Structure formats: C-alpha cells, structure tokens
C-alpha cells in the first residue's frame, strides 16, 4: 500500500515538475506546480508530517500559488519566445543530468541501506508536537520569522505602490 501510494504521487510530482519546466505558457506551469505541491503534501502525510502536509496545502498550494496566478493574470503574461538556445546544452546536459542523478541515487542507496519508510512509523509530526517544539526550542527563530514577515509586507507595499509625487 505504501509503495503504491508513493509511486503514484511520486510520478505525479515528477511529471508535474517536468511540465513546469517544458510548458511555454506560465499559467500551465503554475497549474502543474500546484499538482506537484499537492502530491508532495500526500508524501508528507506518508512520512508522518501531518501538520506540514496541511501547511503545504494551505500556504504553498493555496496562498503562494494564488499569488502567482494573480500576478500572471495581472501582467497578462503570454507564451515566452525561445531564441538562442544552444543545442549542445540539451544534448550534453540531458545525459549528464541523468548520469548525475543515477550516481546520486546509488550513493543515497549506499548511505541508507535497508531503512524503510512506512505509514505510522513516526508519530512526532502532529500539530501538538510541532507546536511544542516551535514555542520552546525554536522560540527565537519563530520570533525572528515574524519580524521577517513584517519586513516582507512593508517591502511588498513599498515596491508595488504607485509613485506619489
């Protein structure tokens, strides 16, 4: 069951990620990216990260991607024109990429032999556990994050407002 779920959603994620890269229209890339993020949320659930799966759907697939789609619509972004792309990059880079990934997969396989992930194998990812760690061990980073978000809000407003003079 675990294997089937993993394979289904891993394939959705990889196909979606390839689609993000090859689609020429930004809105198609955005919809594919929503698919990638949704399937990653399911993989988070399989890894026992319930809180983060919910946060992934709400923050990434919800808020951030809506922002992206909103900007694409606002700027009326069309299909991009491709010019001056070297073919040597494709014919040399593609096989090199695949070779590097195979090497990496082998390396990871050697590093973690026989470690299995199954649903329910780790139960420390609930909202309770994450919240407790967030407000004890990680209290200072949490507060710094709030300041970061405040600065980001101010920066977005300053950048996107109309010049008044």
């Amino acid at each position, binding site marked *: 069951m*675990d*294997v089937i779920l993993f394979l289904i959603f891993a394939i959705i994620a*990889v196909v979606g*990620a*390839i689609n*993000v*890269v090859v689609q020429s229209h*930004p809105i198609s*890339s955005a919809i594919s*990216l929503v698919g*990638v*993020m949704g399937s*990653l949320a399911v*993989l988070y659930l399989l*890894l*026992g*990260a319930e*809180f*983060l799966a919910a*946060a*992934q759907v709400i923050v*990434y697939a919800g808020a*951030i991607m809506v*922002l992206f789609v909103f*900007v*694409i619509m*606002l*700027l009326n*972004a069309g299909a*991009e*024109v491709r010019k001056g792309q070297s073919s040597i*990059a494709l014919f040399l880079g593609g096989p090199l*990429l695949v070779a*590097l*990934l195979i090497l*990496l*997969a082998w390396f*990871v*396989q050697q*590093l*973690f032999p026989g470690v*299995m*992930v*199954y649903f329910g*194998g*780790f139960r*420390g*990812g609930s909202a309770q556990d*994450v919240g407790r760690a*967030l407000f004890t061990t990680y209290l200072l*980073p949490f507060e710094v*994050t709030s300041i*970061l*978000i405040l600065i*980001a*809000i101010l*920066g977005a*407003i300053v*950048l*996107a407002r109309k010049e008044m003079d």
Partner: protein
Amino acid sequence: MRGVPISWYLTLSAILFTLGVAGFLFRRNIITVFMSIELMLNAVNLSFITFSYYWKQVNGHLIAFFVMVVAAAEAAVGLAIILTVFKNRQTLNIDEVDSMKN
C-alpha cells in the same frame, strides 16, 4: 515488502531539485524562473522531512516550516519586484532586463 526505502524519497527530492535548477537556468520568463525556485524549495523540504523521519525527531519539520515561511515572504517581495520591473520595462523576458550589464 513493508514500506518504501528511504532512498526513494531522497532520490525523488533530488530529481525535483534538479528539475527546478533546469527550469531556473533554461526558462526566460521571469515568473517561470520564480516558480522554479519554489520547486527547489519544495524539494529541499521533502529532504528535511525525510531526514526527520529517519532520525525520528521533529526538528526537520520545524526547519521545513521555516522554509515555508521564508518562501511565502520571498514570494510576496519577489512578485512585487516583478510587478515593478514590468511597470518600468513592459517585458517579462529576463534577457531584456540587462541594464546593469554594461
């Protein structure tokens, strides 16, 4: 076989990260480049959560959570920058935004 080898998750994360890098390097539309960055951040998050499972500790979840927060802040500021660039230059092609080149 009960469960999935942990290396599959890490390999999936590597594949997604590589596709993000490829999109970042090959695409010319500034919005798509930005989406590739989000894809890379997601891939790293998957790695963090996998390692969190491996060590049976919640710390990786917290780091992934902070990455999410930073990504949200980055998206807000980045898209505002894209809006400003488009307002000044009427283009989304990153090859045409090269006034600091010469």
